[in-house]
């Protein structure tokens, strides 16, 4: 019987949302392939919510040195678990932590890692689906190795569809005494300068790199004024220093769900979409008809934003006068 081993990342005593979503993918895959499913939790604490998930066994690696994340220790610990278990497929959520250590584990085990997957299908061989060109194109990927490591994108599977069960729990001792630490992380912290809270905004105009230069933001400010909207942006715009960092929406910025999200000159890479896809009404203005933002837009305009935005400002101003 084949084996799947899932890493269940925990933070502050609970499994992370992305870890649970990836675990749902693991449950589905185990059912489809009729494989045995094991989960793995690192650190002293084993959350009750994980103990209630449907799987064949839950491996608990208790070592206190795994309480906070260090790449060298996590690689060594999972390598030891995989040596014992010999899974065919190792699954994790594609979090920033996983991005940091799982490729290193793939290098160490000389096995392929298919990262940031959005799904799989069996036809009849196992095919992983991931996005390339920043979400514009999907790719089917096959592997040819005895073992494969796979990470799943945030939101690819639904944690609310997880099946519950009563797994056998196995405490596993892992010897980490031989690991020399060349990376010494400090405590995590939040930058306190965040002052703009976009989470309560009813209307947001979000601007992407299509605005092309800082001076051109003036037409967006004018539109925001008549629309009574807050200004937000994708990552490049704040990287260029055109808007304050705390106006960034996406995986490294804020998560918002306004009534209206007007995306202007913004391609809508997945890192941006995770921060705004639950908005009420999404309108996208972009000259590239293939921009990923159109996949989640309610209304789309394929045109030059510099022609549309001033006209839209005028039309809104006239409506207010009427």
């Amino acid at each position, binding site marked *: 019987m084949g084996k799947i081993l899932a890493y269940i990342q925990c933070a502050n005593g609970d499994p992370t949302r992305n870890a649970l979503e990836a675990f749902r993918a693991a449950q589905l895959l185990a059912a489809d392939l009729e494989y045995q499913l094991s989960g793995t939790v690192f650190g002293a604490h084993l959350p009750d919510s994980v103990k209630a998930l449907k799987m064949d066994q839950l491996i608990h690696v208790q070592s206190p040195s795994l309480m906070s994340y260090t790449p060298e220790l996590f690689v060594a610990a999972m390598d030891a678990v995989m040596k014992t278990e010999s899974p065919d497929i190792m699954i994790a959520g594609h979090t920033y932590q996983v991005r940091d250590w799982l490729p290193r584990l793939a290098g160490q085990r000389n096995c392929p*890692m298919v990262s940031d997957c959005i799904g799989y299908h069996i036809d009849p061989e196992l095919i992983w689906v*991931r996005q390339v060109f920043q979400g514009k194109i999907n790719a*089917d990927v096959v592997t040819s190795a005895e073992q494969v490591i796979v990470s799943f994108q945030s939101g690819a599977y639904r944690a609310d569809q997880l099946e519950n069960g009563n797994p056998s729990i196995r405490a596993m001792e892992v010897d980490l005494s031989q690991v020399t630490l060349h990376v010494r992380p400090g405590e995590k*912290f939040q930058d306190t300068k965040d002052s703009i809270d976009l989470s309560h905004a009813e209307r947001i105009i979000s601007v992407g790199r299509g605005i092309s230069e800082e001076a051109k933001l003036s037409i967006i400010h004018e539109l925001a004024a008549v629309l009574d909207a807050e200004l937000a942006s994708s990552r490049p715009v704040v990287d260029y220093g055109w808007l304050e960092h705390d106006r960034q929406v996406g995986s490294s910025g804020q998560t918002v769900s306004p009534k209206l999200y007007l995306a202007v000159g913004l391609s809508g890479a997945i890192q941006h979409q995770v921060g705004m896809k639950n908005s009420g009404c999404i309108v*996208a203005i972009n000259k590239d008809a293939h921009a990923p933002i159109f996949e989640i837009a309610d209304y789309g305009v394929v045109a030059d934003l510099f022609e549309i935005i001033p006209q839209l400002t005028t039309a809104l101003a006239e409506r207010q006068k009427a």
Partner: protein
Amino acid sequence: MKIFVLIKQVAAQGSVVKIDGDGRWVEETNLVFTANESDNYALEEALLMKEAHGGEVVVCTLGPERARQVVKDALAKGADRAIFFRDDQFADLDSNALGEVFARILREEEFDLILSGLQADDTGEAELGPILAQKLNLPHVTMVVETELPDGVIKVKQELEGGWFRFVEADLPALLTIQSGINQPRYASLKGIMAMKKKEIREITMADLGITAAELSAMQSITRLYIPEKIKETTFIEGSAEEIATKLVDVLSNEAKVI
């Protein structure tokens, strides 16, 4: 301080990419190629470190002949020399194979730091950095947003999810992957462009490294590319700019009722 910067040449951001006839990659004939965005930030960070601490910046890329341009651009910005691994089959190499190629190149060199961007804009795997660090037995830190170089170690600020960060200290030599936005990348000056012409670009091939194609056989490969199915039904609004504006105001106010 001797710093290696790995740069990948990719299709420029915002390119309209079309799937090729084979269905396994995109048509490259009409694409504009440029240095991967986060690699560009990595190069700038290396140049800033060299300016502050002295030393050498070596840029390294792998790709077909067109990729030579990204190392020329980097030399024009101030990198001291370049290694161009020329290989037309590079698109078939997976990240483990790429890690092996760069490991062979770097084992012949001495260095304090290897920098690259956090992921490639085309394939988006974010794997090469940690894999290469493993092969070279180096510590690594990904998603770096600040760097500092006290004696003998590197101190960085690492980005975690949702606005969280942490400071990480690593022994040298080390490998870092750089997040976009860490600095303000420079443009090449005319003087830099003239100086570039005298700088060394060492061209190497698989044979020079003593690697055979079999050693680099991919453990993962793309079998098919396709346009994703739409999640939502999008109403597209067409017409002149004025007509579009009028229609948009109408649907936002009467259909969606959000203004």
